[in-house]
C-alpha cells in the first residue's frame, strides 16, 4: 500500500479519527467494527474495553460514517473546521519551506 496522504500531507499529521465515549458505548454490539471497511476499530476478546480505535490513520479524513451507524451515539470526531484549518496551515508551511 502506498504511503497514506490527504491533500499531499502525510496522514499521520492529521488528527482525524473516532473517539469512543465509553459512558455510552455498550462494548457489545460492534456495529462500528462490522461497518468500517478500513479496519479502524479492533476487538480485544479478553480485555476491557473490548472495543478500541486501533488504526487511527486508516480513518478517512472527514468521514464520520461510523458515527452515523452507532445506535448509542458513542462515537465522536474532531471539529471539521479546526481540522481543515490545520491542513491548510501545514500545506502553507510546506509551500513556504519550499
Amino acid at each position: 500500500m502506498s504511503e497514506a496522504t490527504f491533500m499531499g500531507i502525510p496522514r499521520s499529521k492529521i488528527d482525524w479519527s473516532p473517539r469512543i465515549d465509553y459512558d455510552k458505548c455498550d462494548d457489545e454490539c460492534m456495529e462500528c467494527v462490522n461497518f468500517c471497511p478500513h479496519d479502524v476499530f479492533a476487538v480485544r476478546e479478553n480485555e476491557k474495553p473490548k472495543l478500541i480505535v486501533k488504526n487511527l490513520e486508516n480513518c478517512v479524513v472527514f468521514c464520520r460514517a461510523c458515527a452515523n451507524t452507532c445506535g448509542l451515539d458513542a462515537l465522536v470526531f474532531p471539529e471539521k473546521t479546526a481540522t481543515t484549518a490545520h491542513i491548510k496551515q501545514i500545506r502553507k508551511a510546506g509551500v513556504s519551506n519550499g
Partner: protein
Amino acid sequence: MGKTYAVLPCNGLDKCAGCVTREIALQLSAKTDNEIICPVFYRVAEARYNRLAQEKPLLVIDGCATRCASKLAAEKRLKITERLNVSDYAKEENVTLGAGLSLDADALGLVRRAVTKLLNDSEKDNARQMSEVDDFFPSSLDYEIYKKDKFIFRLPTNEGFYFNENDVWAYVSGNRARVGVTDYVQKSLSDIMFFTPPAIGAEIVQFDELGVMESGKAIWEIISPVSGVVTAINEKLINAPEMLNQNPYEQGWVAEIDLTDFDEDSDLLHVFDGYMSILKRKVDEYRVKD
C-alpha cells in the same frame, strides 16, 4: 392528508426511541388510512406486507442510527418514500429520551409533533424546489475510464470539474457549482436505496455534510467540496436514488450551491489529473470487507 403510507416502524424494545417509533406508527394509523407493517411479523409473513408496500408509498421510522427498519426495507428490496429517525428528530427538538421503555410526557410530546410533521409533509409532498433547466451545466460530458476487473470507473474530463479526496465532485462556473459523487462512491456502496438531500438555503462550509446516501451496505455522508449556500437539490433522487448508480455526474447530481469563496476552497481540491491518480489508487487498494 393527500397521501397515505405503509408505515414500517422499527418497533424496537431495546431502547425508548424504538417505543417512540411504535407510538408514532399507531397514531398515524389511527388518524388516517396509513397502515402499519409489523417488522416482526414481516419476517415470517412476507407476502402480506410486500403487497401492502407495493400498494402504498413506504414510510420507514427508525428509532436510532442502527436503522433496523431501514435495513429490513433494504433486505426486502422495498422502495422507501419517506423516513424519520426518532433519535435525530429528538435532537432537533431538544428532547432527551429516557433510559426506560415507557414514554414520559416529553416523549409523548415528541410523538405528537412527529405525527403532525409527517401528516403535514405528506400534504406538501410536491412543494420542494426543483432546479430550473438552463445552460449552466454542459449538455454532454466527456469521460476517461479506468477499468479494474469487471468494474468501470468514469471520470469527466470537461474543464470546470473539481474533486475532493472524499470522492465528491463540483462543477464550477462563475459563482455557482453543481455537486455530486464520483463513480468510486456509487460502486463502493452498490445499490443506493435512499438519498437524504441537504436543506435548500443551508449554509455549507467546505467538508460539511451535503446530504446522505444509503445502500444495504452502508450509510455515506456526501462531504461538500465547496462552501456556499444550497440553492437547489436534485429532487428526482428522492424517489429514484438509483439514478446515483446510473450516472452520478449527469442525471445523478446532488445539489447546486452559490459559492462564497471558491478561491479558498480550490486550495483543497483536485482537477482531473490529480483526482484520477487518487481514484486509481483507491480502486487498486479497495477490498471487500469479509
